């Protein structure tokens, strides 16, 4: 039979590596999928493109937009991708040197401080509120500052215009090495088992082409396994790691020479869930948070968002 033609939306980030690996190593072909990767500059348009039928699969964090599109019956979350688990470096909480010197040495002191986020309703926003909840002060006591872009937040943090921020480890470590930023905590202390990103598809695919979706997830997981083995668990040896970095460099940091790109790719590697299993407990928590912040309708249930029939959930 002729291969199914599908399009996968991706960003040029290491977190999308599973797609690239599955594509480069022919895992999609093995499953009879003729994949075309379509690149985007932000996660949001991928969701819209899936809703409009231009793209079949995408990887993105749970966001208000995703939930609302799901509510409209356009998309379904079918699996998990990035995940935080104990024992592995996860997202870190940072403070500007200025704030640190004036007493912001642990997340408990965040009350009344400003916290950088990209957008209202983004994962950074969620993290900030979870910290407030756990430390026992009102969410509104953390002053979130939407700054749109990671680069902008970094600038603002370094120059002390915001007091704090949370970010993936390789960026956090890089920043903390400098003189202007200090590390003050870990996100995993506040959100254990954080399901950072998920893989999703259109509702039509999830309900009518279940078999094709399964094949996609199979190939995708295989790519994830290779990636984890090469760069996260480092069980595959240096040569495999090198190969993996070279493969990813075709898609990420392309405009930089390999020597410069390699460390960034290596340090940026985070675990991708095996078999795309999904921490639905955390997804529920995220949904509840969106609902408590009035960003999505209170009547939405987890079933509206997630189709749990494809992968293991817990």
């Amino acid at each position, binding site marked *: 039979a002729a291969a199914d033609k599908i399009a996968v939306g991706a960003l040029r980030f290491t977190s999308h590596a599973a797609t690239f690996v599955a594509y480069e190593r022919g895992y999609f072909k093995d499953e009879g999928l003729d994949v075309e990767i379509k690149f985007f500059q932000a996660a*949001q348009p991928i*969701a*819209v493109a899936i*809703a*409009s039928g231009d793209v079949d699969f995408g990887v993105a964090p749970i*966001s*208000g*937009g*995703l*939930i*609302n*599109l799901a509510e*409209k019956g*356009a998309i379904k979350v079918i699996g998990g991708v990035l995940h935080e688990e104990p024992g592995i470096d996860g997202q870190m909480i940072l403070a500007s040197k200025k704030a640190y010197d004036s007493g912001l040495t642990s997340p408990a002191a965040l009350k009344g401080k400003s916290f950088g986020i990209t*957008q*209202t*309703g*983004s994962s950074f926003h969620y993290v900030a509120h979870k910290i407030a909840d756990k430390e026992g002060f009102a969410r509104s006591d953390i002053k979130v*500052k*939407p*700054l*749109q*872009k990671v*680069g*902008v937040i970094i*600038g*603002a943090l370094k*120059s002390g*215009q*915001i007091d704090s921020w949370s970010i993936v480890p390789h960026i956090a470590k890089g920043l903390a090495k400098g003189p202007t930023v200090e590390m003050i905590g870990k996100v995993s202390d506040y959100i254990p088992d954080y399901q950072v990103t998920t893989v999703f598809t259109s509702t039509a695919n999830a309900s009518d082409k279940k078999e094709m979706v399964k094949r996609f997830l199979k190939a995708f997981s295989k790519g994830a396994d290779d990636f984890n083995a090469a760069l996260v668990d480092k069980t595959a040896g240096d040569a495999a790691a090198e190969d993996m970095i070279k493969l990813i460099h075709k898609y990420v940091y392309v405009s930089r020479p390999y020597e410069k790109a390699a460390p960034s790719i290596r340090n940026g590697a985070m675990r991708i869930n095996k078999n795309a299993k999904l921490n639905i407990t955390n997804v529920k928590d995220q949904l509840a948070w969106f609902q408590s912040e009035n*960003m*999505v309708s209170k009547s939405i249930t987890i079933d509206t968002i997630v189709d749990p029939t494809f992968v293991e959930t817990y």
Partner: protein
Amino acid sequence: MADNETNPVPFRGGGFSHKPSFTVWMMVFVMLILFWEFGSNIGFISNLVLPAPSEAFNAFLQLIDSGMLWKHLRASLQRLILGWTFGTLLGVGVGLLIGLFSNVRAGLSPLVSAIFAIPKIALLPLFIIWFGIGEGSKVATILFGTFFPTVIATYGGVDNVDRSLIRMGQSFGLSRLSIVRKIIIPGALPAILSGFRISASIGIILLVAAEMIGAEFGVGAYILLAGSLMATDQLIAGVSILSLMGLSMAWVIGKVENYFLKWRV
């Protein structure tokens, strides 16, 4: 003498002038809204991204009810008015300099073209460093965005002023300043005002970019949030507010034109 046919001289003149008609505009507007509502209802317009106007209107009512409208509006209007006023004032000033002095033109006009083409969004990190994440960077974004089109419109207008009128001014020994104030600026005014129409709209558009940075309130912030939540009814409500702002600015500029250009036919 040939035949006896008698005809009135055919009227060939007239035309090429305008009577404003509010009815026509209302008709167009109402028809558009009806078409849209109808299209949404029969599914001809996908509800996924473009909700029916009635839904958007509901979102708008909610915005009023919640009392947020005024907060958003106040914050945005303040930024817009500050940024636009200084942007256009500076723009007219620099445009005049470029229009008047060969050396300034040679040095600055390529610079204007070069910098104008830089997306404000790419400059946001710089703006934050320079102007902070408070009101400064927001006003600066709008100021920057309205400055350049005003410069171009102004020096285009100056270039188009009738040189023989300038010679007349010189012959009466008018100071250079007087010539600029009394001959060049009024002569370039139609072009400058046309530039204002453009810069006003650009200023409004840039509210969204400006309010990307640490804005709690503001129509742009409201739209950004609606966009990231894919709350299309709110998005359209927010966008409609911007449209209304655009309409109001255009209306004001129209009045200003009527007043200052009444010497034209």
